[in-house]
């Protein structure tokens, strides 16, 4: 089975070891939930998976092929939802969405409508971004997932600010995505309804990083 894998990953940010010795594997249709306290490296790991940053050591692979060898193919399958919503205040909801859908290939009104419907944004389609509430902006960000299909969803705290109805939309969208063979990696503090998801607790790897740092510090260099 083709796996999205990470092996022995070490992440260093701003000169500090965030985690060390971390590995994971997600199969087609699978889901991985990252848990851990603030600062344990959930967002850093998602950024490594997306290719926004490079691991200090270790590697990521997709179906056995190193991702570093073909970053463009990886970018074509990654859909990343970060903390920021990427909503332009002076563009309307549908203009915002159609721009992002267009960045992943030709996108017509159908794709935009599919995205809007998945997160119940049809009634807001003509409104400018500046009048949206925080929750509505976040739904618009999530709508990118439905408007431009990609194999690997990387979601950083996707449920923050969502009401119950929107959380259900998200659950449904993830279920449909996984049903079609897609994979999801989500970092979250609130429990999400993801049947059969694996859980990766980051704390031990963060502790391993501290240990590695302490070891380096003890080593006499001069």
């Amino acid at each position: 089975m083709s796996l999205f894998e990470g092996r022995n990953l070490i992440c260093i940010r701003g000169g500090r070891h965030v985690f060390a010795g971390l590995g994971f594997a997600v199969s087609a249709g699978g889901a991985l939930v990252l848990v851990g306290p603030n600062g344990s490296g959930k967002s850093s790991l998602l950024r490594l998976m997306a290719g926004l940053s490079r691991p200090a050591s270790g590697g990521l692979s997709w179906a056995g092929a190193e991702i570093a060898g073909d970053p463009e193919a990886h970018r074509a399958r990654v859909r990343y939802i970060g903390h920021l919503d990427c909503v332009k205040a002076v563009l309307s909801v549908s203009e915002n969405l159609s721009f992002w859908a267009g960045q992943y290939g030709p996108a017509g009104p159908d794709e935009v409508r599919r995205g809007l419907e998945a997160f119940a944004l049809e009634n807001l389609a003509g409104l400018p971004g500046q009048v949206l509430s925080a929750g509505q902006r976040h739904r618009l960000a999530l709508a990118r997932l439905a408007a431009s299909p990609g194999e690997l969803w990387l979601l950083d705290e996707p449920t923050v600010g969502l009401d119950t109805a929107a959380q259900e939309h998200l659950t449904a969208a993830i279920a449909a995505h996984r049903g079609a063979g897609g994979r999801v990696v989500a970092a979250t503090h609130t429990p999400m309804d993801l049947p059969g998801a694996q859980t990766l607790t980051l704390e031990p790897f963060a502790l391993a990083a501290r240990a590695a740092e302490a070891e380096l510090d003890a080593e006499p260099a001069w």
Partner: protein
Amino acid sequence: MHRFANPGRFLRLSNIVLPWIAAMAAGLIAVGLYLALFVSPADYQQGDSVRIMYVHVPSAWMAMFIYTVIAAASASSLIWRHPLADLVAKASSPIGACFTFLALATGSLWGKPMWGAWWVWDARLTSVLVLFFLYLGHMALMGAFDNPTRGARAAAILALVGFVNVPIIKFSVEWWSTLHQPSSVLRLDGPSIHPSMLWPLLAMGLGFKLYYLALMLVRVKSELIAARVNARATAAAEAT
């Protein structure tokens, strides 16, 4: 771990070579100054003020040489992510800026009796001035980030962009200066140099290079030690 294994070796090695380099730099500069001030002849036109050349010309050489070192270090930092390359670039930049400033200041001092003005927009002086601005931009960008790794990366890209541009800038400044000053003013260095002037010049040039090398090693060492101290402080803060 590759990030620290290399620096450890670097520190041991630099401790061994540093005294030798420093001593050789001091010796060469002393010999060069003696030859320049007492042995070499005064110019029949310029008199004793020609002796400024023995500081001015090597400084101008160093200005270009150090920028080249920075560009090479930046390239190896961006391509191979060599852990010491960023430190070499960071340590070299202020030294290069100082040499560039020295070249400008001595050029201006030399120019006063020659041209009757502290500054003329001569093509060479102007290119060195632009090089000085490039150094300042590099230093400013390096220090403008809270995360030192980002500052080093950004400065490395800037150094390469600047390095590609240096010949273009030099060429256009020369073009510009011929447009505006068709009659060439007295050049700062004569076309032919007598051996009695060449030897002190070479001694100074080599002395300056070794002096730069020694200073750069000291600065890289102190950067490494500072990083170690920082790491220890954060570890201690986390432990409590």
